[in-house]
């Protein structure tokens, strides 16, 4: 009973997160301006990280946590670099 409930809930959550990623991908491609794309990329990697967390719950393995942590770390670095690029036109001056 609880196994059926949990696997259905995880499947539904993964579908919702996949739809959210598709909406962010549309905003990233459509854009109209560069800052819209950067904001969409920032939210896109957070949603991908959440999708990996739910994948770890589905497989019952804690190994996916490390992939999620790396996505969170590198995503922050890329957002800061892109924000710096938007501001100055260069990442490292």
């Amino acid at each position: 009973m609880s196994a059926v409930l949990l696997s259905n809930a995880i499947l539904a959550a993964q579908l919702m997160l996949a739809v959210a990623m598709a909406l962010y991908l549309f905003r990233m491609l459509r854009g109209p301006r560069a800052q819209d794309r950067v904001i969409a990329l920032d939210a896109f990697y957070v949603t991908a990280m959440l999708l990996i967390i739910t994948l770890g719950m589905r497989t019952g393995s804690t190994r996916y946590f490390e992939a999620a942590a790396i996505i969170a770390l590198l995503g922050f670095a890329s957002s800061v670099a892109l924000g710096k690029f938007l501001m100055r036109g260069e990442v490292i001056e």
Partner: protein
Amino acid sequence: MTGAALPLPVAVVIAVALLCGAGFTLAGAVGAFRLRSFYQRVHAPTLGSSMGMFLILASSILYFTMERGALVFHEILIAIFLSLTTPISLMLIVRAALARDRLEGSSDVPPLPGQADD
């Protein structure tokens, strides 16, 4: 099989937290998809990176703790890190966008204080 040994009330709590978190994230994505101007669209995704992230990580912590029978809470690292870094990166990007809009002389953003008469 996923969580066959879990008692039903715990499974219900995990499932509800997971679905609420994913729903918050989806609502944020719909907001980023539909809202009209950039400064409106900035607000929506933070729903996913605060409330959605907290609920999904809490359900993951509860799931692994109940399944292993020992406290497994390393997901809290991601929660602390993201709740520290999301405001920083968003503030950087929005300040950059504001500077770009002011440089273009856009009429949608307020001018710098002290330059209102230009």
